[in-house]
């Protein structure tokens, strides 16, 4: 029941906002619907924590501790982003960059996007997972090109074509998966695409076909995770789309795509009984971390900078899932959480920072701490958190990943250290003058909603200092599921 509400509310929201999205109260309605979804998700979490995993509606939906944690995270960041977007989009409208009609499209698609992500997370059907991932792409394409500038059209086109090709590979992978499963489970009863059934018989699935399927699935969904060398769409889409969209792309969509990869990995690893899938994840992850870190040096646009930082962090998370085992998986899940919270809060402040300075070029943004201490310090603290400074939660998860890597695959440690070091130097060098320089720009017309920023950072800080027992238990259970 809770599942249907979690899925239904965003759809209802999309419908309502398609009708009323151009009115004054649209932003409030958007936030209200997101809040209702968050409440429904909280009930779902409680139920799963109390009664264990859940399989409903002809086994089409499946919730265990792994995906319910992502559902909670998605609903939470979805709600705070809606709060942030209220004053942000109002300022954009006042400056004439957006018309009420565009805002209607934006609000409606925002809800649709959330709905598609929830569907991808909750479904038990690997085919439906594909459909939902594609729907999530489609609903954000028009959001990336919302400003209709040349650069944003180019970014959206690139996003559409690259992710479209990627997702086509994933479809072929899904077909192969179905092909292998059909031999074991048969065609009747439509069980051959259900993850729970596949998981139960994974030892009997033909290893060669599943190995091939995994290559296609990894390349396909990996494109959406932003793994190098398939990451080309990501910086453009993040930089040219409106900031709330960058925040949910970075904070949520990448996680959901990675979730799809991990679900596939569990099946394939069980079938071929070797470490090959894990090794592939490690390679892709390490490459993305290093590539992302080195590209940070060359960035001039503040949103591009943090988009590359997302590539780096998704690389680290993918790498950790590749190592596998309870500790690395635990660290990866924790890193997913703290990265999502920190990165979205950074995008919130970066968005307001570029509104204050009237440019996204970092050379033009100066002295934020003087103009608006909340924006300036929010950006500074967010950057410190994402760079893995103690006592923030990112430090804890990166530390865990690093020590596990040192113990199990010592050769990877230098690469990780170089990536982390380069990222630190690059980001710190660029953020510092933006926060502390001199500037005479006037403050913003609408006071920015920076409460979400500090709530996110407070959670990240808390997770770094003290992790509640229940939460640690929850993460441990999820880590065990992934194996």
């Amino acid at each position, binding site marked *: 029941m809770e599942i249907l509400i979690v899925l239904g509310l965003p759809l209802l929201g999309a419908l309502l906002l398609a009708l009323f999205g151009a009115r004054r109260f649209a932003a409030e309605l958007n936030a209200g619907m997101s809040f209702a979804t968050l409440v429904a998700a909280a009930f779902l979490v409680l139920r799963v924590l109390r009664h264990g995993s859940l399989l409903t509606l002809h086994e089409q939906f499946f919730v265990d501790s792994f995906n319910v944690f992502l559902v909670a995270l998605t609903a939470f960041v979805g709600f705070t982003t809606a709060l942030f977007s209220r004053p942000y989009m109002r300022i954009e409208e006042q400056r004439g960059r957006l018309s009420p009609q565009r805002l209607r499209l934006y609000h409606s698609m925002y809800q649709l996007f959330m709905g598609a992500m929830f569907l991808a997370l909750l479904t038990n*059907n690997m*085919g*439906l997972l*594909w*459909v939902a991932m*594609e*729907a999530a792409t*489609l609903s954000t*394409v*028009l959001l990336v*090109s919302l400003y*209709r*500038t*040349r*650069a944003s*059209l*180019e*970014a*959206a*086109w*690139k996003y*559409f*074509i690259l992710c*479209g*090709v990627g997702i*086509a590979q994933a*479809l*072929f992978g*899904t*077909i*192969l998966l*179905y*092909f*292998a499963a*059909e*031999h074991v489970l048969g*065609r009747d009863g*439509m069980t*051959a*695409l259900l993850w729970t059934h596949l998981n139960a018989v994974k030892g009997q699935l*033909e290893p*060669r*076909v599943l190995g*091939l399927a995994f290559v296609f699935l990894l390349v396909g969904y990996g494109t959406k995770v932003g793994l190098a060398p398939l990451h080309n769409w990501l910086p*453009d889409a993040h930089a*040219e789309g409106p900031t709330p969209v960058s925040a949910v792309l970075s904070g949520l969509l990448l996680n959901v795509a990675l979730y799809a990869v991990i679900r596939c990995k569990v099946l394939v690893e069980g079938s071929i009984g070797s470490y090959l899938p894990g090794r592939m994840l490690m390679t892709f992850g390490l490459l993305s971390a290093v590539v992302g870190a080195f*590209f940070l040096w*060359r960035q001039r646009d503040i949103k591009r900078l943090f988009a590359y930082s997302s590539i780096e962090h998704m690389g680290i998370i993918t790498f950790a899932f590749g190592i596998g085992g309870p500790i690395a998986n635990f660290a990866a899940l924790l890193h997913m959480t703290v990265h999502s919270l920190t990165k979205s809060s950074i995008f919130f402040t970066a968005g307001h920072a570029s509104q204050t300075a009237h440019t996204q070029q970092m050379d033009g943004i100066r002295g934020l701490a003087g103009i608006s201490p909340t924006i300036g310090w929010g950006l500074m603290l967010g950057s410190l958190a994402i760079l893995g400074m103690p006592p923030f939660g990112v430090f804890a998860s990166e530390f865990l990943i690093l020590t596990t890597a040192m113990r199990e695959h010592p050769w990877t440690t230098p690469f990780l250290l170089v990536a982390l070091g380069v990222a630190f130097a690059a980001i710190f060098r660029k953020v510092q003058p933006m926060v502390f320089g001199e500037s005479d720009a006037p403050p913003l017309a609408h006071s920015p909603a920076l409460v979400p920023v500090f709530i996110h950072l407070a959670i990240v800080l808390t997770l770094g200092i003290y992790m509640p027992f229940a939460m640690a238990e929850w993460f441990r259970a999820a880590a065990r599921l992934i194996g």
Partner: protein
Amino acid sequence: MPHSHHWIVPSLNLLASLLLLISFAMLSRRRTQRLITLFAWQGAILFTSTCLVGYSSGHKELYYSAALTLMLKVIALPWILHRLIQRLGAQWDSELLVNIPTTMLVGLVLVIFAFGLAQPISLMATTITRNTIGIALAVIFLAFLMMITRRKAVTQVIGFLAMENGLFFAATSATYGMPMVIELGIALDLLVGFFILGIFFFQIREQFDSLDLSHLEALKEE
């Protein structure tokens, strides 16, 4: 119920080879109108072969997906594409990144690669169409090649749709098609995606006065 006539397998193989032939023809064509016609032919072949497979295997839901193919890929999409390029005036795709003979050679290599890749799957398959899995994979790769070597937005989209044709063919040859719900979902995504592309064409032309994607090369790493 399943029928087994001796003519079914050879004619399916014939249809599959026609599909491959059309993919090569698409690589060599420069007029957008021709490409659309070829795409519609590809859809028609898919429709026929899906019906044949449905008849011989006795899986009724294949008729539904065949009907979906007929409506979407043979009638609706080609018709909309024709209308679109007439309104946009984008009839020629003169800009090629790689010349046609080279593209053909690369295409040949891709076909060989696809057959090699499909070998283990074909050996395992129990469907009567198992020999055509390699062809399906080749169609996917050739469509991919077309997307890489062309510059016009419309041509890239036709390449994208042709790739989807290959995927559909792969699903029918390897497994007699995916479950109906999934097929419907895929068709819906395809339709919505196509709709968004249509909007895009107008936005791109409004901004650039052309559908040439070489304009879309401002965003690069310096």
